[in-house]
């Protein structure tokens, strides 16, 4: 019920703005195109709207509950990426006129194999980014509607498909900007309400973390996936049918879909390789990757990946094309930092409150649902339901905005760069891509959204970041060098991810370098690109291409008209001047 109430309006409004967004700009007489130029603020809202995914809305708070305050470095990296983008990529990329990295590769190096390789990298990045979106949306829907995880994922897939079919192909700036405002409001207001509502005890506890060892009250825990827990003292739990079950000391298998009520005062079962929320090191502001120690290395690995990866995210890069010129693109990036910073002040609040109020989520691996689970813990009346619905709507808006953009980019890469085809094929590809992502998301329930998304960033940092940075700033780059660098970066990161997911476990600093390969894969990709390029000869048009990337565009023609007098009388024109200035 709550799910329907929360999801339906978001989808409806998204569709309405998508369909009417173009129509809303109709004028009959005093219309002036210049006034429709997207201002940097609007565009940065659109960038943020597309960028703030379910991983940001839910994942960061979930990671804080599970791993500790160090997880707040993730949003720092997500935001700081725009500073790297601002300084290195935004303006030249806009001047190149390219929409995507394959386009850029084509414009700068004119190499079809590089174009196809870049498209493959887009598929990998898009996959790593999309799967957690669908996974988290499914998880949240299943939590609020009390259904199975796979039902939630399928519902999310159906909603995306319907939205795309009914006009979501336009990926309009106004829709994304609106989504950002929606997310911001739906994230901030519940946070403030929660802070005011929880009372002084909880607030006190929130800032003085203690380890979660015993259940503070009778707690129902729903296991949506199978878990092996470690019991230290015999624990008697009730199941939903009223029967009692005593878990013996030792390892205990809990089947997927079972729900138990742990009585007040019962000892919390342990999970292999994880410390419960609030345990030792929880409040340390560094990231402990997989609990292997070396927190400084882990933190730097995550920061490097997220900072350099942002510039390679295909759906974000596309947004900068909407800026009228390179200067506006740079301003857009700068304003995006501000807008994202405002948003990222709040996951921490949900995180620390979640540790106090819903620590049991860590047992089920569903800490990503902490944000949505909070209101009902604070208020079991109508207000709690209302805020749960609001947060679900926000989470779903995040999921929808990012998934639509990414699905379009991914299917664009398939139908445009890998196969030749027109729009008809694009429509088919979009749906096939959505189905593929739903299928991939089904077995991914236990993988944290924040981790998967960071892997997406890592791949981007090891492939597109060297390609863009060297392509823009180093005239000697050759097509062979770029291909070698991207291929090495892609293979290195993909190999590390496969090792982490399916390989035999390793320990110590090696484990960190396998789970977060950015510290070695990024320099490796850069190095390969430079060394291979030095053996070759840059293409003869390099100077022309570089000049186009770095010289300022001509002054805007329609405004430079001598006849476009600044003293023209109509209001619209006065507004234009303000817009454009």
């Amino acid at each position, binding site marked *: 019920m709550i799910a329907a109430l929360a999801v339906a309006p978001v989808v409806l409004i998204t569709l309405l703005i998508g369909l009417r*967004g*173009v*129509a809303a*700009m*109709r*004028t*009959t*007489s005093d*219309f*002036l*195109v*210049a006034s*429709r*130029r*997207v201002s940097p603020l*609007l565009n940065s809202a659109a960038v943020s709207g597309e960028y703030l995914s379910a991983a940001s809305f839910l994942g960061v708070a979930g990671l804080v509950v599970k791993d500790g305050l160090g997880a707040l470095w993730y949003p720092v990296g997500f935001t700081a990426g725009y500073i790297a983008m601002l300084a290195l990529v935004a303006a030249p990329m806009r001047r190149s*006129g*390219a*929409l*995507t990295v394959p*386009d850029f590769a*084509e*414009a700068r190096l*004119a190499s079809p194999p590089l174009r196809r390789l870049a498209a493959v990298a887009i598929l990998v990045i898009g996959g790593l980014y999309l799967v957690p979106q669908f996974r988290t949306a499914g998880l949240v829907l299943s939590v609020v509607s009390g259904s199975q995880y796979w039902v939630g994922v399928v519902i999310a897939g159906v909603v995306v498909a319907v939205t795309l079919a009914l006009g979501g*192909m*336009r*990926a*309009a*700036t*106004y829709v994304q900007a609106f989504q950002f405002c929606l997310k911001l409001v739906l994230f901030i207001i519940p946070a403030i309400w929660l802070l005011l509502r929880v009372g002084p005890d909880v607030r006190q506890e929130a800032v003085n973390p203690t380890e979660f060892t015993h259940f503070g009250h009778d707690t129902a825990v729903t296991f949506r996936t199978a878990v092996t827990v470690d019991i230290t003292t015999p624990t008697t739990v009730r199941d939903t049918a009223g029967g009692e079950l005593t878990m013996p000391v030792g390892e205990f298998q809990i089947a997927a879909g079972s729900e138990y009520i742990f009585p007040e005062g019962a000892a919390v079962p342990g999970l292999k390789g994880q410390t419960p929320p609030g345990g030792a090191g929880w409040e340390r502001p560094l990231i402990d990757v997989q609990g292997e120690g070396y927190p400084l290395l882990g933190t730097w690995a995550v920061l490097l990946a997220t900072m350099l990866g942002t510039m390679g995210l295909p759906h974000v890069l596309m947004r900068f*094309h*909407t*800026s*009228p*010129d390179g200067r506006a693109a740079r301003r857009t990036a700068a304003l995006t930092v501000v807008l994202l910073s405002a948003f990222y002040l709040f996951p921490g609040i949900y995180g620390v409150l979640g540790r106090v109020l819903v620590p049991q989520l860590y047992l089920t691996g569903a800490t990503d649902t902490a944000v949505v689970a909070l209101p009902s813990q604070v208020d079991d009346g109508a207000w709690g339901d209302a805020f749960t619905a609001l947060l679900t709507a926000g989470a779903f808006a995040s999921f929808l905005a990012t998934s639509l953009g990414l699905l*379009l980019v991914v*299917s*664009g890469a398939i*139908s*445009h760069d890998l196969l030749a085809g*027109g*729009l008809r094929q*694009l429509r088919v590809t979009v749906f096939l891509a959505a189905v593929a992502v739903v299928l991939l998301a089904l077995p991914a329930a236990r993988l944290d959204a924040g981790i998967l998304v960071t892997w997406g960033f890592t791949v981007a940092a090891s492939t597109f970041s060297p390609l863009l940075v060297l392509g823009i700033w180093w005239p000697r780059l050759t097509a062979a060098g770029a291909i070698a660098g991207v291929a090495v970066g892609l293979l290195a990161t993909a190999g590390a991810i496969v090792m982490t997911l399916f390989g035999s476990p390793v320990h110590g600093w090696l484990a960190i370098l396998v789970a977060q390969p950015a510290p070695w894969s990024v320099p490796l990709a850069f190095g390969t690109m430079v060394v291979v390029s030095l053996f070759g000869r840059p293409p003869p048009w390099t100077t022309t291409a570089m000049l*186009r990337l770095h010289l300022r565009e*001509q002054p805007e*023609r*329609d405004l430079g*008209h001598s*006849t*476009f*007098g600044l003293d*023209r*009388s*109509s209001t619209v024109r006065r507004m234009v001047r303000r817009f454009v200035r």
Partner: protein
Amino acid sequence: MSVLPGQDPAARSWRPLKRGALATLGVAMRVAGDVAGGLSGPRVRAAVRGVRRLLEVDGTGLADLSGRLEWVGQTPSGVDVMSLVEDVLHSETKAGRLPTVALPLHARDELSGVLVVAGASRMGPVRDVADWISDALERNRLEAMADQAAQAELRALRAEISPHFVYNALTVIASLVRSDPDRSRELMLDFADYTRYSLARHGDYTTVADEFHAIETYLALQRAVLGDRLRVQIRVAPEVLAVAIPYLVLQPLVENAVRHGIEPRSRSGLVQVRGEAEGSDCVISIEDDGVGMDPAVAERVLAGHGRSDSVGLTNVDRRLRNVYGSWFGLVVETAPDAGTRVVVRVPMFQPGVMP
């Protein structure tokens, strides 16, 4: 020399002939390529060397119209080559006699150079080679002319402001000068903008924003001329404003919609221009609810067999295909009395297309 792949022994019987013929063909092709820059171009020397190899003579030379001779091989004794060249340049006929002859090279019946051969034994092959070079020169001249024609066509399209429209616009403005000076001033500025954009010399590409701006000024003027008969709706999504498109692609289509859709009938009509992104394509449609036409007529117009005054549609279609490939031509949906809809679809990014 040409490279033959494979060393199949069965092929040995015919190879010598083929090799010789292919080699000759290869040299001839290279000569044709080398004179592509003209007879005073940078690769004339290579061409002369090729000619000498073709004719297997002691020495050959090519001279351009200024009489500057590029010579390869032995200079013939007892003959003043330079005076032969001068003779040919003045008489435009063959000069000298075997073994040293000079032949004029004509391209499109115009003298464009001189071929001099020393040590030739027969006249036939020398004439053939002279004809071959003349043909190559002529082809280059034709290609250049085709380019010029395309450029001129584009320029002609730019300059194609209907005199009728200019007259009407200026009359309307004049009639408003006393009663509504502000409006007439606005219109005057619109007119200036319009002519500036249509006539000014720009690059080959512009942005959708500039093109829409031109449409606006045009439609503002037409609305002044046609009054209530013309209603206009322009909708454009901000994503596509920065997309680069060929210069003056949309404006002729809008002019068509007004001139052939709305003007011929007495009732009022609506012209809608929409621009939006679809995936990685930019789709712009120009729609009028005017008289429309028979689809067969539209097909003929697009194929270039329409009336001479509707050259705009064909031109736009050809330029779009030229720039973006054959997939991206115009799409015209029309029927008699059902209005006309012209759809332009271009990729948002195409290498080489920059405003």
